[in-house]
C-alpha cells in the first residue's frame, strides 16, 4: 500500500500528495498555530474593527477588531480536535460492531444490523441537533453525537469486509484448532480488513469536519469565543452584503481546503487499497 502511494509519478499520486500536504499544513496549524500567529486571536480592538486586509492584518479584522489571519490559523485546532476524535471513536465502535455482526451471524447479526439500519435512516443533522438540544451544546457532546451517528456507517463497511473474509478457509482452519471467537475476530480477521477500514475512516473524517463546521455554524457545536471556522462564519455572515467578505471568506476557504485535502487523501488510499 505504501509503495503504491509513494511510488512512481502519476496524476492520482500527485493529487494524493497534494491532499496530504494540505492536511499536514492544517494539522501543523492545529498543533503550533496558536503559538506562532502574529496576533492574539482572542484580542479585540474595537478601534480597528472591520479593517480590510493590509500589511498589518493580512486577512483584515472582524467586527470586534480581532485579526482574521490569526483566527483562521488558530481555528484549525478546535475543528481538528473534535472531528478526528469523533471519527476515531466511531471507528473503534464501528469496527467492533462490524466484526461481531459479520463473524457471529445469526440472530446477533440480525438484531444489531436492524438497529444499525434504524440509525442510518435518520437524517444526520436532525439527530445531532436533537441530541445536542437535550444534552446542551459543547465540544464534547458534539464529538459524542458525531461518533454515534458515524458508528453504524463504519460498522456496515466493516461487516461486509468481514463477511468476505469469513468465506476464506483460514477461518474454519482457526476454528478447527480451537481458537476463541475473540482471537479469530481480532487476530485472524482484523488485520485483513484494515485497508477498507482505513479508507472508510478517512472518508468519514472529511464528513466529520463538515458536520462539526455545520453544527458550530448552527450554534450547537464549538462555543464562542473560539476561533473555530464554522463559528466565525456564523458570527460574520451577515456582513458579507456590507462588503466585509474577508470576515467570512477566509474561514470558509479554510474549511473547504481541509475537507478537500482529506478527501484527496481518502481517494488515494482507496486506490492503493484496491
Amino acid at each position: 500500500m505504501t509503495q503504491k502511494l509513494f511510488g512512481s509519478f502519476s496524476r492520482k499520486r500527485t493529487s494524493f500528495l497534494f491532499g496530504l500536504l494540505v492536511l499536514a499544513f492544517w494539522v501543523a496549524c492545529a498543533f503550533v498555530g496558536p503559538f506562532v500567529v502574529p496576533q492574539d486571536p482572542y484580542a479585540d480592538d474595537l478601534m480597528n474593527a472591520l479593517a480590510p486586509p493590509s500589511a498589518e492584518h493580512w486577512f483584515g479584522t472582524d467586527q470586534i477588531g480581532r485579526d482574521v489571519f490569526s483566527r483562521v490559523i488558530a481555528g484549525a485546532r478546535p475543528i481538528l480536535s473534535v472531528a478526528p476524535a469523533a471519527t476515531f471513536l466511531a471507528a473503534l465502535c464501528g469496527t467492533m460492531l462490524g466484526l461481531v455482526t459479520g463473524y457471529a451471524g445469526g440472530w446477533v447479526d440480525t438484531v444489531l444490523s436492524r438497529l444499525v439500519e434504524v440509525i442510518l435512516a435518520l437524517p444526520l443533522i436532525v439527530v445531532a441537533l436533537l441530541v445536542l438540544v437535550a444534552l446542551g451544546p459543547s465540544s464534547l457532546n458534539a464529538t459524542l453525537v458525531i461518533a454515534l451517528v458515524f458508528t453504524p456507517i463504519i460498522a456496515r463497511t466493516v461487516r461486509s469486509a468481514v463477511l468476505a473474509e469469513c468465506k476464506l478457509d483460514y477461518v474454519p482452519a482457526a476454528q478447527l484448532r480451537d481458537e476463541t471467537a475473540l482471537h479469530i475476530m481480532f487476530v485472524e480477521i482484523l488485520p485483513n480488513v484494515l485497508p477498507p477500514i482505513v479508507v472508510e475512516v478517512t472518508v468519514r473524517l472529511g464528513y466529520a469536519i463538515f458536520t462539526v463546521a455545520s453544527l458550530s455554524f448552527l450554534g450547537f457545536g464549538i462555543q464562542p469565543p473560539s476561533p473555530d471556522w464554522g463559528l466565525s462564519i456564523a458570527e460574520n455572515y451577515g456582513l458579507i452584503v456590507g462588503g466585509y467578505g474577508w470576515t467570512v471568506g477566509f474561514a470558509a476557504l479554510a474549511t473547504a481546503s481541509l475537507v478537500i485535502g482529506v478527501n484527496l487523501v481518502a481517494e488515494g488510499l482507496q486506490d492503493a487499497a484496491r
Partner: protein
Amino acid sequence: MSPPALSLAGLSVSYGRTPILRGLSFEIAPGACFGLVGESGCGKSTAAFAALRALPPAGRVTAGQIGIDGQDVLSLSRAGLRQLWARRVSMVYQDPSRALNPTLTVGVQLAEAFTVLGAPDPMARAEAMLARVQVPSPRRLLAAYPHQLSGGTQQRVVIAMALAKNPSLLVLDEPTTGLDATVEAEILDLVDALRREQGTAVLLISHNLPMVARMCDRIGVLYAGILVEQGEAGEVLGAPSHPYTARLVACLPGAGRRKRDGPLQTIAGGLPAPGAALAPCAFAPRCDRREAVCLSTPPPERWTGLHMALCHFTPPFPAPPGLSAGAPAEAGARPVLAARHLSKTYAGPGGAVRAVDDASLTLAAGETLGLVGESGSGKTTLARLLLGLTAPDPGGTLTLDDAALGPTIRSRSRNDRRAIQIIFQNPDSALNRAQRVRSILTRPLVRLAGLSGRALTAALSELAQGVRLGEAHLAMRPRALSGGLKQRAAIARAFAGRPRVVICDEPTSALDVSVQAAILNLLAGLQARDGVSYVFISHDLAVVRYLADRIAVMYLGQMLEVGPAEDVLAGPHHPYTAALVSASTAATRIRLKGEMPAPGAVQAGCVFQANCPRKIGPVCENVRPPFDPDAVHPVRCHLPAGELPRVDRRLAGANS
C-alpha cells in the same frame, strides 16, 4: 499447398523490459490441432495473445513474424487487424462466465456475432449455432441469461460465438480448466467434431498433458518462453526427445500407478523467475543430463523428421535418481473414523435441498479413502460434516475410535478436534495472508499440541522440515511463496496437532504436474511416517488412483459406490462411475444424458436415473436402489451385479 493457418517465426515478446517469449517458431496446418503445454508462468497465454496480436498494452513483440493464412499480421493496420479479428480468428478463454456479458441474453450476444458479419436473420442463425454445439433446447436457451446456465453450457455458448464466423484459426486457452471431468470430455469431443466439420485450425493451450495428447496432432512444449520440443503428439509424450518433456511426463500419476509402486517423479527447482538471466540452455540448472557444454553453448535445434528438440543430447536420458521410497502405510483393520447415515439438508428457495443424503463411511488407520464426484455432488459438505464445521441433520452418527464424536466442533473435546484436520484446496484462501508462515505454524502447535518454550521451537522446526520448508520460508508471508510452497505450509499446519485423520480437499488441483507430484509424494510419505488416514477428495481419477486404497463415488449428495480402489475403477461398477472413468480415457467415452440436475430436484428413485445411459425403466424413477454400506463393494444401482458396466480401460494408461 495452402499456407499454414498460423505460422510463428522467431517470435519474441516482452512485457516492459522482461522477455516472456524467446524466439517461438511453429506452424499449424489448416484444419490441424496444435497443443502448447508447459507449467504456469512459461508464457503459454502470452503466446496465445501474441499469435492474434492481442497483447495487453504492456506487451510488445520485439522480434519475429506472425502469419495467419499467409498474411503478415504484424504489418496489418488497425482496420486490417479488426477485420482479421472479426472474420478469421477466434479465442476461447478459461472462464466462460467472464467471457459472457451478464446483462445480455445468450440470444442477443450470439446474434451479435452474426450481425457483425452482416449475415441476414442473425437470431435464427444463433439458434442453429446453438444446436450445433449440442445444447438441449436451443430455442429456450436464447432467452436465458448466462448466470442461469451451468459452466459447461456457458462454455458451449462461448464456443458457439467463437465458431459463428467460421474462423480459420481458433485459439483455446485452458478451455476446460474448472469444468468437471465428464463435462470436459464432452466439450473436447464437441471442439474436435466441429473442427473436423469446419476445417478450423486449433491452437490449444493447456497444462493438462493427457488432455492435449488426446486432442492434438502436434504438440509444442514451452519452457521459460522457449519452445524446447515439438512434434507429433503421441511421439512427444510417448518418446520425449527433451529431458524436460521426459521429466514432465514422468511426473504424471498415470498408467495405474499406485503409492505402493513408489513415489512419483518430480522436477527439482522451479521455472526461472521472469526477467532472470537464463543459462545458454534454459533447462540446464534443473536437468539430469547436464554437462559442461549445456552451460557454455546454446543447444541446437535437433530435427528428426518433423520432431524437434532443443538439446545437445539425444535420448535415452538417464533415469533420474530413484526416490527413496518409504514403505507405504499398511492400512490397519481397526476403523478410526466411522460415519453412519449422515445427511445435511439446507433450506433452499424451491424447498429443502439435500446436500448430503444418507452417507456412511469407515476409515481404517493408515488408509486413504478417495472421494470422487463432480461439483455439486456433496463432497465438500461431507468433509465439513466430518470436521464438525457443519452440523449434520439429526439421526446420523460419527465415531472416532469407537467413541461417539460430537456433531459440531464446539461439542468436541480438544483431543477430538486435533484428531481430524483438513488441507484445503486453495492455499491462498486457507493461509491467513496477514500472518507469516512461522505464526501460521506456531499457533496450532500451541493450541492443539499444547507446546511452549523450547519444545515449541523444536516442534516447529521438525514440522517445517517434515514438509521441506526452510528457515527462510518461515519468515515470509504466504503471498511471497510459490503455489507448491504455500500448499506445503498448509499441509504442515494440518499435521501440527498430530491428527489421526486428514481430509484433503483437492489439494493439488491448483498446482502444476511437477509440483503436484511432489505434494502427492509428501502426503504419501507423511502417511507412512504417522500412520494417518486420509479422506482424499479429487476429481482427477489418476491422482485418486495413485493415493487411494478405497474409493467412494458421490453424485447429488449420495454415495453411489464404495469399494477397494482397483475394483471401483476396473469395474464392474455403477453406470456413473463408468462414465467418470471413461471421461479420462480416449477409448470409449460414455455419454451422459443431459446435465446433473439441481440438488433437491430428485425426490424418489435413483438420483442418477435422469442422466443414466443404462436406465432400466420405471423402477429407476420410483424405487431407491438398495445400498449396504457395510458390504465390501456396494453399488447403488438396480442393475443386477452381472450386468453392471465395465469400461474398456485399455487406453486408460495412455497418459503415461
